[in-house]
């Protein structure tokens, strides 16, 4: 029997063999590896089996369990933004614009970005640590050996759930944030709830809401993908778990700002 060389696919390990020498090489490895990981996600997402039970379980863990944290943060942001903005608006005699200003700020920018950052801290790091720990304890190998596709079961489900859940959480954070703003307005004066919200709805239109929601899908996708990537390729050992969780948060938060910057530019071109 003739032995022969076997190259099944380009893998991270094969890339590392060639480029480990230089810093530029490491950066190239990371970017190429993440790109291959993303391509693999889009290949696997359409293929059966569809892990509905795992999707529901992750939706509960990622969405429902994150809601209290996101809601509290949203309420505080709405309250603080209102209190901090009041003196500046008062200088220009525009205190009546307070609900409108806070609503636009919250819905367009602060709500989605703060929710994404909270989400990156809670969910991105959680996914990174969970997958890294599964890798260290050979649970991912055990899945593979039992005929399960671990990428499909662990990565595809978590990325999909993060992509869908973050927009929902951002909308909820916006809503709770507006109630925080209402509380802030009422700390120094009296404004009825109906008047407050009539001011809010007059100032916010579809063009404020839609781009903000669309960008949260990208935030969620990036956070889920980076969390999974960092966990899936974690180094072995307990140190690897810590590093995976840490770098998942740092990298995902950075990506949130980069995506936000691109989204703002695109929205500006579209709107003006």
């Amino acid at each position, binding site marked *: 029997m003739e*032995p022969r060389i*076997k190259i099944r696919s380009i893998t991270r390990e094969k890339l590392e063999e060639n480029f480990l020498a230089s810093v530029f090489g490491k950066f190239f490895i990371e970017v190429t590896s993440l790109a291959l990981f993303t391509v693999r996600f889009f290949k696997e997402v359409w293929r059966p*089996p569809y892990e509905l039970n795992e999707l529901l379980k992750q939706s509960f863990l990622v969405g429902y369990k994150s809601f209290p944290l996101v809601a509290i943060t949203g309420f505080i942001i709405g309250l603080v933004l209102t209190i901090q903005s009041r003196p500046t608006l008062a200088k220009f005699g525009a205190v009546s614009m307070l609900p409108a200003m806070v609503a636009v700020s919250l819905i367009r920018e602060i709500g989605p970005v703060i929710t994404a950052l909270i989400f990156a801290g809670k969910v991105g790091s959680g996914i990174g640590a969970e997958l890294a720990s599964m890798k260290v304890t050979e649970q991912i190998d055990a899945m593979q050996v039992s005929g399960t596709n671990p990428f499909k079961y662990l990565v595809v489900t978590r990325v999909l759930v993060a992509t869908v859940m973050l927009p929902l959480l951002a909308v909820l954070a916006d809503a709770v944030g507006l109630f925080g703003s209402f509380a802030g307005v009422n700390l120094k004066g009296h404004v009825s709830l109906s008047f407050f919200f009539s001011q809010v709805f007059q100032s916010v239109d579809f063009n404020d809401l839609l781009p903000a929601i669309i960008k949260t899908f990208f935030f969620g996708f990036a956070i889920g993908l980076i969390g999974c990537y960092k966990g899936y390729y974690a180094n072995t050992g307990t140190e690897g778990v810590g590093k995976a969780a840490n770098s998942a948060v740092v990298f995902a938060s950075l990506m949130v700002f980069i995506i936000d910057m691109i989204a703002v530019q695109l929205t500006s071109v579209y709107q003006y």
Partner: protein
Amino acid sequence: MTENAIPIKSEQDAAQNGSFVVEMVHLRKSFDENQVLRDINLVVHKGENLVILGKSGTGKSVLIKCIVGLIDCDYGTLVIFGEDTSRLSEEQLIAMRKKIGFLFQSGALYDSMTVRENLQFPLRRQERSTPKETMNSLITEALENVGLAKAIDKTPAELSGGMRKRLGLARTLILKPEIMLYDEPTTGLDPITSKEISKLILEVQKTYNTSSVIITHDMECARLTADRIILIKDGMCEAEGSFDELKNSPDAWIRSFFE
């Protein structure tokens, strides 16, 4: 090969291509500059327990991970059930893996699941249409076979080291594999539990008619379970024989394993 060592028969056997379930020809694997497997030639016969011995870091675990496809070898031919694995598609490899059981050194139990769920997981993946009653009876049977029936609702964190190994074994056996790969099954266990695990390996061989490859440093486990032993040195098969043949070898290095 070391002078006076018992000669390797695998290479001649490989040419005959008889009742082998696994056949490795000139297998090599490196990690960066470290060549772990230099030239591995061996076969696993149907229904036999093959024990692989060697010093730490000689590539024993890498070797069985190549068999199950967790690691791709760099060079050489790996034939399982008569099929050259390098010619198989991903789907065919997954189908082949279903016939191979792997007991990890750490157990590799899913720690977010209970004992029952650990066994349900591989069953659901493979037989999605299995009725709940059939699944429950399979789980109960697998747990009874390894003496863990009472621990069905516990989590892996609540189990002792021996129980974790037995659960890992039950999870593998529930899929009725034709080849069992054991990666240091008795490491970290006391002598009594180690003996129980060794006996369990023999029972598995008889009950399920499996062929097994057992990586171990535990000589008592090797003595109890081995039909044949292969010694690995520097990434190559150094010697082969029964426990008694190797123990009484004229070669001092081979004998040193058994002293």
